[in-house]
């Protein structure tokens, strides 16, 4: 069983291939170049290095949000093209759940937090048994509101994600439960953690056709928000 994983939800562009329970290749760049320029050349290099015939993969897992709107769409559109050409199913993985899987050995509440701009974070809390259990529902909210939920949950928390450098002071000031930050090198999105999350879903048959793939932005567009504020 082979799975291809892709995450383009943030600054990181990442592609990986897992065969059964072994990661056989991963290519991750955390660099300012746009995903539009990097993603496909990375996939090309990875498949060449692995001498991988893409038609032998069983499914494509992709981070479907929250995250950068444009980044998410580049990934989703690319996955839809791959799914159509290869006639393979896709697996939708929450960006936050995928990110949490990079710390899936932790006994704490793993709390991925992304910088959502406009003084908000995209965040959630997960506990790991054999698989991730979402114990604090993913949402776009103010960091204060998220920390309040972490405090209310009452267990030791582990924070990771690109929201950490942005909200570190708030966390240190507001968090009343014991907390720590993820270790270096496992604190950003990666396609291998998307695949860790995808493995279980593949086994359970949680597959979709490429055309059914939907992004979960957790936020409406600015135009829709302003229209709603006017009561239209």
């Amino acid at each position: 069983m082979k799975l291809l994983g892709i995450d383009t939800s943030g600054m990181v562009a990442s592609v990986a291939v897992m065969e059964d329970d072994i990661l056989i290749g991963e290519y991750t760049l955390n660099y300012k170049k746009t995903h539009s320029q990097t993603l496909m050349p990375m996939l090309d290099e990875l498949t060449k290095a692995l001498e991988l015939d893409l038609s032998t993969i069983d499914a494509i897992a992709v981070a479907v949000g929250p995250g950068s709107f444009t980044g998410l769409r580049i990934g989703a559109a690319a996955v839809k093209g791959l799914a159509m050409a290869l006639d393979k199913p896709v697996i939708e993985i929450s960006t936050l759940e995928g990110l949490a899987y990079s710390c899936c050995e932790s006994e704490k509440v793993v709390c991925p937090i992304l910088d959502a701009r406009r003084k908000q974070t995209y965040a959630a809390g997960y506990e790991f048994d054999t698989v991730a259990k979402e114990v604090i529902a993913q949402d776009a909210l103010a960091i204060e509101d998220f920390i309040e939920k972490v405090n209310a949950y009452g267990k030791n928390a582990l924070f990771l994600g690109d929201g950490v450098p942005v909200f570190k002071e708030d966390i240190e000031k507001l968090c009343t439960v014991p907390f720590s930050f993820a270790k270096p090198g496992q604190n950003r999105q990666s396609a291998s953690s998307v695949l860790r999350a995808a493995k279980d879903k593949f086994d359970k048959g949680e597959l979709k056709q490429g055309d059914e793939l939907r992004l979960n932005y957790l936020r409406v567009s600015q135009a829709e928000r302003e229209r709603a504020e006017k009561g239209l």
Partner: protein
Amino acid sequence: MSVKILGIESSCDETAASVVEDGRLVLSNVISSQIDIHTLYGGVVPEIASRKHVERISQVVDKALSDAKCSLSDIDAIAVTYGPGLVGPLLVGVSFAKSLSFASKIPLVPVHHIEGHICANFIENKELEPPFLCLVVSGGHTHLVMVHDYRDYEVLGKTRDDAAGEAFDKVARAIGLGYPGGPKLEKAALNGNHEAIEFPKAKVAGSVYDFSFSGLKSAVLNYINQCNMQNIEVVPEDIAACFQDAVTGVLADHAKAAIEEYKPKAFAVAGGVASNGALRDRLQKVCDECGIPFYKPSPILCTDNGVMIAAAGYHEYMAKNFAGLDLNAVPALKLGER
């Protein structure tokens, strides 16, 4: 051996795909328009457009293939619009086309959106071949282009500010017709008095073939303000008729001047505004006076579509202008740039 090109277009608010044979024969033409959604906002909202494109792109491409009774393996190349246009919408088509090309090992060719509009003329006019002169008028573009050869374009003039279609939309909004302004304004103009108001025909100093429509738009807005201040009744139909006359008059005048100077053997019009009946009539008259044939696409091929992208892509394919996997969306791509 015929060449089949799959064309993909997502530069604005239409998700479109089509299969075209040898750059001229349409095998399918699928357009998923988002106009209903954007009408709520009085214009295209790029973020909403981008979201809709990514939702619909697979279905649209799939239908284009099945309508053409094709599978991917019958396709010789995938053509995609990479500019100009809205960056978010463009990126959806470009990203999808790149991965489809990569995984299916079908070559990818990059297409300029305006060149696509021009090439829409090859579909229904089998005898049309370069060189010819073409006026491209749409919501985002107003270009007077000498088409020397397939893939060889010379821009004689373009708008310095608003595109012609943009001016239609803005004026339509000002007189309460709503979005999209072009068709609604054209309809209102049918019942208007063409002599009621005299709007200026803007000329651009030092550049015979360039256009400027923002002055005309301001003149319309000023006229409405003055009427309101003096309690004079504003007649939307009259404004529509006189504004449309002013825009189409400038476009026709420029076309005529360019025909007289460059002496092309044919003249064509392209782009969304090319479906405007008043403009078509005027251009027909100009061409009759100059004694050259006038070519125009059917309205369905004037709007953004995948057919025109496949038609233009055919010439890119024949010239072996293939795109790499790092192809990016170029929102301000210039005509003739490769």
